[in-house]
């Protein structure tokens, strides 16, 4: 029961003391800032996670033994009702070098054996994909299509590559650039061209590069030849496998953009058959196998509920399909595939939230200060209330109520402002930029066109309720002080 005088007196105190307004504004500000800043950060993290998930298959079967073929795994995996599609993946490594010829246009420095502008630029993580199957598992078309908008944002007008739209599936499987494009590229590079333009047929397998390599090779045009230098152990007839170096000529087929930074920086996508051929498993060879290092898996939407169980089941199925005695393979979901990176991002967000908690704490201090002062100033009133028969609890409740009202109003206002400003952040940011040249949230920071904003209901309620709760806790101290006073001394107080 709250004695009737508690809210009554609390209300009078609140209305007659302007300092309460300040405390309320303090809470409003803290809540507003927490919501806004975190919504931007959550938006940013959400964007990163979306990028990562865009670049990553839903599940991947990996840690396979060397010389594993795709077919047995495919049938084992696709026998499971949860699996919608699978696609073969072949990881390899190599060095991509532009082809330079004495007579041709020399990109970069002439004559040097190798072209290293950056420790990683020449190196590529080669990802052999089957363009015919890959699109069923990852948004391959989107990766390529997005490059146009991503590059446009950096003032590079380049249409997205059309290699995936090639009607002939055999050509599409090799990511071949159009015949005349390759013909022109050969001419450009000063390479020998047999026959007329109209008769030329493309032969170089295509390679799609992450758009971040554009910085190192701005001169690269569709069809331009690239040499892939690599080494791999090749099975020899009898005897131990031997390490062999390889060179594979590829045609630059276009840029892709998943926006997952690490992926776009390091990965080169090329036809899996081209890579298999380089590694000694040519399609035409009857002894060859359809070599894979991973199998990318997409699930039916209905099966996504219990990802862990599905992953375990698929792992068991795949393990049975491997030769007996193979080391255990593993099935990873998209987050498990990127724990290091996602963990680093989460750490950053946790640091940010810690700082926001400090903000809340300081705002709660304001309430404490105001209430504490109020108790000191109203010492005599407290004595009067006690003399009139107010119980200590009810007297404490007066100040607690003050704190709660201030915090609740502040928190509600702050939440309202926070949500409003988060929704209109980009407009405000642009308006401010247009008027003053200042940016509240510098867009360059996010590498994005618009400041990403995401209001997380969980965080909203945590902040809003947390502010009230924190204020309540801090208000308890002055309230306790008021409840514990000795009425006789309080009455004598002057």
């Amino acid at each position, binding site marked *: 029961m709250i004695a009737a005088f508690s809210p009554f007196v609390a209300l009078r105190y609140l209305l007659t003391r302007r*300092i309460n307004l*300040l405390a309320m*504004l*303090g809470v409003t*500000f*803290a809540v507003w*800032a*927490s919501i806004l800043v975190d919504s*931007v950060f959550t938006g*940013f993290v959400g964007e990163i996670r979306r990028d990562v998930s865009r670049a990553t298959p839903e599940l*991947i079967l*990996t840690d396979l033994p*060397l010389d594993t073929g795709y077919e047995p795994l495919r049938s084992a995996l696709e026998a499971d009702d949860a699996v919608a599609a699978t696609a073969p993946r072949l990881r*390899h*490594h*190599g060095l991509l*070098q532009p*082809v330079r*010829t004495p007579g*041709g246009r020399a990109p970069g*420095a*002439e004559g*040097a*054996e*190798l072209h290293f502008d950056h*420790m*990683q630029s020449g*190196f590529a*993580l080669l990802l052999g994909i089957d363009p015919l199957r890959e699109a069923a598992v990852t948004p391959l078309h989107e990766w390529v299509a997005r490059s146009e908008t991503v590059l446009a944002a950096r003032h590079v007008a380049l249409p997205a590559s059309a290699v995936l739209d090639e009607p002939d599936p055999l050509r599409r499987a090799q990511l071949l650039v159009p015949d005349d494009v390759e013909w022109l590229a050969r001419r450009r*590079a000063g390479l*020998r061209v047999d026959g007329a333009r109209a008769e030329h047929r493309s032969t170089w397998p295509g390679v799609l590069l992450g758009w971040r390599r554009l910085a190192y090779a701005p001169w690269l045009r569709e069809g331009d030849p690239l040499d892939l*230098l*690599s*080494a791999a152990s090749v099975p020899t007839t009898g005897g*131990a496998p031997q*390490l*062999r170096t390889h*060179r594979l000529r590829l045609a630059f087929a276009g840029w892709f953009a998943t926006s997952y*930074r*690490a*992926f776009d920086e390091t*990965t080169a996508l090329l036809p899996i058959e081209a890579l298999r051929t380089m590694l000694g498993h040519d399609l035409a060879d009857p002894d060859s196998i359809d070599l894979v290092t991973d199998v990318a898996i997409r699930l039916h939407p209905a099966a996504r509920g219990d990802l862990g169980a599905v992953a375990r089941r698929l792992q068991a199925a795949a393990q049975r399909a491997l030769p007996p005695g193979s080391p255990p393979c593993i099935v*990873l979901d998209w987050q498990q595939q990127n*724990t*290091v990176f996602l*963990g*680093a991002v989460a750490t950053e967000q946790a640091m940010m939230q810690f*700082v926001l908690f*400090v903000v809340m704490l*300081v*705002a709660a*201090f*304001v309430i404490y*200060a*105001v209430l*504490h*002062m109020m108790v000191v100033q109203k010492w005599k009133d407290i004595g009067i209330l006690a003399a009139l028969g107010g119980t200590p609890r009810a007297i404490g409740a007066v100040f607690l109520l003050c704190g709660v009202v201030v915090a609740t109003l502040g928190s509600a206002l702050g939440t309202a402002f926070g949500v409003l400003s988060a929704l209109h952040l980009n407009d405000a940011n642009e308006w401010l930029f247009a008027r003053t040249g200042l940016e*509240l949230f510098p867009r360059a*920071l996010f*590498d994005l066109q618009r400041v990403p904003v995401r209001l997380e209901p969980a965080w909203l309620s945590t902040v809003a309720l947390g502010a009230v709760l924190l204020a309540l806790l801090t208000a308890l101290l002055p309230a306790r002080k008021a409840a514990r006073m000795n009425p006789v001394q309080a009455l004598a107080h002057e």
Partner: protein
Amino acid sequence: MYRLFLAVRYLLTRPINLLGMLGILLSVWALVLVVSIFSGFLVEIERHVRSASADVSVHRLPAWASGKALEQALRDDPNVRDVAPRLVHYGMLGRPGDRPQPPPLLGRTALHGGDQPFLLVLGVDAAAEAAVTGFAGWLRAPSIPPDLRVADPTAPLAAADGTPRVLVGLERMQREGLRRGDRVLLTTGRLQGDGDGQKGLQQISLELQVAGAFKTHHGGFDGNNVFVDREVLRQALFPDRPDAVQEIAVRLHDESTLSATTDRLQRLVVRALDRGDDLARGHVQGWRDKNGQFLRSVEHQRGLLKIVLVVIMVTAAFLMLATLSMMVTEKTADIGILTAMGATPLGVLQVFLACGLTITAAGVGLGLSAGTLTSVYLEEIRRFVLWATGVDLFPLQVYNLDRVPCALEPLWLLQVAAMAFATGAVVSAWPAWRAARHDPLVSLRGT
């Protein structure tokens, strides 16, 4: 005099002022701590990169370039202390008969690279290299276990019993279980153009003996590079060009003029390589430029943090404003008496301003000290928290660090102090001004 006297009295008799101070303290503390971690992180990464780099490197040299002539030209520059020619190639390293694993899945690699099977092979002269980079120190890094250490660090690459030697990054050695004296095979290739522009790849296999481990602070560098003797690599790659060079590492006398020197050397190199065809050859880069992309990728997160820190400041300002204006309200009677005794409004203003500024100063001072202390002892705090609660506040291995980074930049501290002080002054000014404008008669009459 009475101003100071009163200000001190007011402060000492009102513990609530401590709270205002606490607000400033807390915000300054958080500012200093968080920013010092972030800066420390940057500084540390930069130091790591720096430790593995030459001051300046000259690369993209044409095939016909003469190492000797170029070296001599570079040495003529007053700021060049030493130069070291290098050959830079690529390859795979493995025990004979071993089959290399495919590269790790993208998301499972170390955050800053260095665990790929494919690597760069640096052909260096051990003596020249030691004069230009921290090469000698890399071999003596204390974290290298004794059994992986180079036996003779003064001549680490000298061939023993006819087999040339190779230095491998410590982590790669440990990961692949390599030991000193192991025989390894470096597989690489050489492009050989035919007259038609078609290039064939001629395979080259070098049998090497592991001389020991090297360790810089830059995990990416250690993982991506191995060292062999330059002459060994040259004979394999360019048997007909005794003077071949692909990169020249340069050490400067004075690093503060890095960019000016880089520009000067660039002109010098272009002149030395000019064949009268107006083609600019050779590229000179300072270490910061050379690793620019890597450094920038680490730096871009700091911006948002500063916004949050401003938010704390403003909240602390609210707290100060609340405590100070309550003090003024409470001291209205005093203000009346003071005025009656002949204090000018300005004097009254100064009393309360002094209160506010003292609180601010104390808060800033304590906040700076607390922030500095926690920053400096952060690693110990992290270990304690890990030990006490099992929570790791800062996952170090992700960033390839051995302790929580922290860098206190005096300029930044000064900026924080100035910002906090300005905030304190502004929020003290308003209540002080209110006090000064107060009608003394109202105070004396009381209510």
